[in-house]
């Protein structure tokens, strides 16, 4: 390391060597970081798959994944009702959340004066920071009794879960949609307005179609948020083992079923809960594939 007596060139060389040396270590650390996350995913995948094998073997794929008869005490572990519950709440949340989120994004990007937009943006950031259990509790204390009074049911159920999920997914959808709209070239809007289009026509006919893929990805990421949400949903959905086709019916999602029963489950029952985790994981993979597909489609157009 000492460059004494080596002259100016020596000093430079030593410095370069030390720099290269450090570069090497830094690169190693970064690689380790990346490797850890890949390793974590692999371990999770292998572990969940291994733990769900006993249920798949004992119960059978048909009775496990494609049956709605869930009744551990009699050895029935059909989870189709909960898969349906997960899909129903998630899509329900998107039906309400997507227009709301994209609408807010349009408001922020195109309509609101800067000062108003700043206040709204801060509010949404704050919403994203509220822990889900707080939102769930809020739902339990205010939303459920309100729904009970309005609908004459117990208040617990799919609709309460959907509303809670809308609140949870809204920040994701809004932020990403606003980001997409902002990234559109300003010429688009200028050209449209120059041709005599009104503001609404510009938004509806020019901006939204150009931002389509980005908005779709925003909604899909919002879905990812909704699909995995556990605590908040568990507090308001009613946690019944039956399947429901009613908006105000009580049911369970995959995540809420797992968290309700994992504490005391053992044997095949425990393994069946892991099989639910496996389904969730596959749903997540599916969402990612859809995102890849959507964003690949965009490239030739750009």
């Amino acid at each position, binding site marked *: 390391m000492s460059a004494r007596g080596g002259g100016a060139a020596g000093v430079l060389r030593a410095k370069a060597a030390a*720099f290269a040396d*450090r*570069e090497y270590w*830094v690169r190693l*650390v970064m690689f380790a970081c990346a490797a850890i996350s890949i390793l974590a995913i692999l371990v999770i995948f292998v572990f969940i798959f291994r733990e769900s094998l006993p249920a798949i073997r004992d119960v059978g794929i048909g009775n496990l994944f494609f049956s709605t008869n869930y*009744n*551990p*005490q*009699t050895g029935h572990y059909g989870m189709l009702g909960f898969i349906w519950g997960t899909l129903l709440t998630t899509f329900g949340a998107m039906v309400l959340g997507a227009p709301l989120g994209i609408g807010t994004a349009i408001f922020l990007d195109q309509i609101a004066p800067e000062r108003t937009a700043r206040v709204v943006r801060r509010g949404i950031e704050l919403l994203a920071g509220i822990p889900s259990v707080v939102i769930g509790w809020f739902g*339990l*204390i205010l939303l*459920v*009794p309100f729904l*009970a009074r309005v609908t*004459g*049911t*117990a*208040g*617990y159920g799919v609709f309460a879960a959907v509303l809670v999920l809308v609140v949870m997914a809204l920040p994701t959808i809004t932020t990403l949609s606003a980001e997409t709209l902002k990234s559109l070239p300003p010429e688009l809007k200028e050209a449209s307005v120059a041709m005599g289009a009104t503001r609404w026509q510009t938004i509806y006919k020019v901006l939204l179609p150009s931002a389509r893929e980005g908005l779709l990805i925003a909604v899909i990421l919002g879905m990812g948020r909704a699909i995995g949400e556990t605590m908040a949903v568990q507090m308001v959905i*009613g*946690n*019944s*083992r*039956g399947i*429901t086709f009613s908006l105000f*019916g*009580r049911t*369970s999602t995959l995540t809420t079923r797992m*968290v*309700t*029963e994992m*504490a*005391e*489950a*053992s*044997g095949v*029952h425990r393994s069946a809960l892991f099989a639910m985790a496996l389904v969730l994981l596959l749903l997540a993979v599916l969402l990612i594939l859809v995102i890849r597909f959507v964003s690949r489609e965009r490239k030739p157009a750009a």
Partner: protein
Amino acid sequence: MKALGRVLVTLLAAALALALLSLTCGCAKKTVALGRYSGRVRVSGSTTLLPLIQEASIEFMDANPRTKVDVQGGGSSTGITQLKSGIVNIANSSRELKGDETGWGLVDHRIAFDIIAIIVNPDVPVRNLTSNRVKAVFTGKVRNWKALGGPDEEIVVVVRDQASGTREMFDEKALGSTRDHPVESEPSAIECSSNGVVRETVANTRNSIGYLSYGFINRYVRALKVDDVPPDVGNSTTGRYPMARWLHMFTRGQPGGVAKGFIDFVLSDRFQNEVVSQEYIPVRDVLKK
């Protein structure tokens, strides 16, 4: 680069300090006491009792580091079978011995008493249900309070989760469920993962009915009489109130050594009052009455 290096070094130092700290803590804890007992004891049986006995084993091994307590589930029958064949030293059971299980010199240690009370939201005007009606309500045959002398409102049924021992006992004693003919509560019932959640849900949901361990009743829910008998320790021990049971630990002959130490620990005032009482009624509180 330099700044990054410094950050890394700081992090490393912090991690090292933390490791050292935890190391010294670990040592300090280990040298506290070796406890009175040493050796190994195997326990299996009731899944109802599993959480309780696991907690006991952790605390017992903490106090007696030279012991090893293996606790497994499997169900009361499995535990008793394993006890008879000498695989385990203690069998946990949520039921009495029956049939050919008696006569093997098995010694009964009652470790807790369990009473299930049926509770309703305080707005519900019903005060008493016949046992037949209890069964009809929880299996979904009766869905409106009107049929039970209440208002024209839907009955909201609240039950425990599928893995719960309380649910198992309720299904057995109130719904008449057996191994060969399982009877289940209705599919749209709200499932709660603990006694506390049942209480909160029933307290906050109009027209709701549920069940929980007796110790959890408070003024925000109302306990119902069953066949005109209110749930309490007196009525339960005499058998007038049917939904109650002793929880047991069985041994083959009088226990000795670690097995005795472990049972004594479960029966100790501290464990009974601090842990057992969270879900069940401590043994002493029953015998007092």
